[in-house]
C-alpha cells in the first residue's frame, strides 16, 4: 500500500476510528485504488505501533461499510465491485462528518437553523463558482 497512514494515539478519538477515517479518505481521493491490497492486520499494527485488535476492528467496520473486502487467506482489498460507488460512499462519509462537526459548532455558539443554512449556501456558492 503506497499510503502511509498516521495515527495520533494521544488524541481523544479512538485509534480504530482514525484508521477508518484515513482509509476512507485515501479511497475517496483515489490514493487507494479499487482492488488494491491493504497491509495485513499484523503489518499495519507494527507499522503504526498500535494494537492488532484495533486494526482488525477498523478492517471489520470498513468491510461492513462496503469500503474493503476480505478474501480468507489472501488478505484485505479495496472493493473492486462497483468501485465508483465505493469511492462515492467513502467520500460522502468523510464529508458528512466534517459538515456535521461544523454545524454542531455553529449551533452551539447560538446560530439559528436559517442562519446556518444561509452560511452553508454562501459557502457552496463560493467553492462551486467556477464551472463544476
Amino acid at each position: 500500500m503506497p499510503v502511509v497512514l498516521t495515527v495520533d494515539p494521544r488524541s481523544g478519538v479512538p485509534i480504530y476510528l482514525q484508521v477508518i477515517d484515513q482509509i476512507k479518505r485515501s479511497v475517496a481521493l483515489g490514493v487507494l485504488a479499487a482492488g488494491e491490497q491493504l497491509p495485513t492486520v499484523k503489518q499495519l499494527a507494527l507499522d503504526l505501533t498500535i494494537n492488532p485488535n484495533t486494526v482488525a476492528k477498523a478492517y471489520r467496520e470498513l468491510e461492513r461499510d462496503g469500503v474493503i473486502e476480505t478474501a480468507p487467506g489472501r488478505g484485505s482489498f479495496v472493493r473492486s465491485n462497483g468501485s465508483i460507488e465505493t469511492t462515492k460512499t467513502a467520500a460522502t462519509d468523510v464529508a458528512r462528518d466534517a459538515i456535521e462537526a461544523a454545524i454542531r459548532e455553529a449551533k452551539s455558539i447560538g446560530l439559528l437553523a436559517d442562519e446556518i443554512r444561509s452560511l452553508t449556501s454562501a459557502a457552496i456558492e463560493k467553492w462551486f463558482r467556477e464551472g463544476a
Partner: protein
Amino acid sequence: MSTISIKNLRKTYGPYMAVDDLSFEIPEACVFGLLGPNGAGKTTTFKCMLGLARPTSGTVLYGGLPLVPATQQHIAYVPERSVLYDWMTVAEHVEMQRRAYAKFSVPKANELLRQFGIDQRKKTRALSKGMRTATMVALAIAREADILIFDEPTSGLDPINQRHVLNLIINESARGATVIFSSHQIGQVERAAERIAVVDRGRLALEGSVDDLKSDRKIVEAILPSETFALNGLAGDPRITRIDRNGRIVRALTSHDAQDVLARFEALGASGLRIVDLNLEDIFLCAVSPADATADVVEGR
C-alpha cells in the same frame, strides 16, 4: 490458555493494604495495560498473579483454574527491578534460560539481543539500566510463553528502543500471546493496549477497552443562563460522573451518551454547548484524582 480472572484480590503487608478487593478479567490474546500512580499496587498485583506473593484473600484464576507449576512454565515475567546476575555474562543468562525452559528459543534470544545492540560477552553489571531492561525483555520473549507479564518494560530505554519494545509486545499479541504490562508512560499504553485497568491506592478505579473509554468518557461543557441557575436533577443523572461549576460555566464528565447529556443541558436553556474528547491521560487523571481535576484537565488543553 484462556482468560485470566482476578477476583476480590486483597493483599496486606502488616497494617498496609497494598491491594484492596481488586477484580478484573484479562481476555486471551489481549494486550492489557495496568496503570496507576506510584505505590498503587501494580507490582503487588503482578506478584499475586505469578504466585510470588500469597494473596491475603481472593483468587487469581487461569482459565478458571488456580495457578499450578505447569501453568507457571507458560508465564514469562519481567520485573521492574533487574533480576540479572551481575557477575554473569549475557550469554550465560541465555544458557541458563535454555536449561530452565523447554520452549526457550536460543536463535530468537540471539536475534532480539542483537536488535537491542547488546554484546552478549559483557557481564550484566556492565550494562546500563535500560540495556538490562532490554536484556530481560529479550529473554522473556525468547521463552515463547503464552502469557507475558512486564512491569515497566520500557524504563530506562531511549525512545527508539521504547518503540521497539512496544512493537515486540504487538508482535507477541499477534501470535496469540496475552501480554499484561504496566507503564507510567500513558502514551505507550494508549498505543499498544486494547484494554486497561487503573488502580489507585490498591483499588480498581477504572477498567475497560481503550477505544470504548475514549468513545464514552467525554466532557460536556455548557454556559448557563445565570450563575445561580439550578441544575434540576442533573447531579443524579447516572451518565454523569462529576459536575464542576465555575460561575456560568459548567462541565460534566460523562461515562456514556454524551450527546444525550448535551441535549439535557440544551433543554435547560444552556448555550455554548460542546463535547470535549478526552485522551487516556485525561481519563486516567479523572479516575485517580480528587474532584477538581476535571476542570484542570480541560483548562490545560
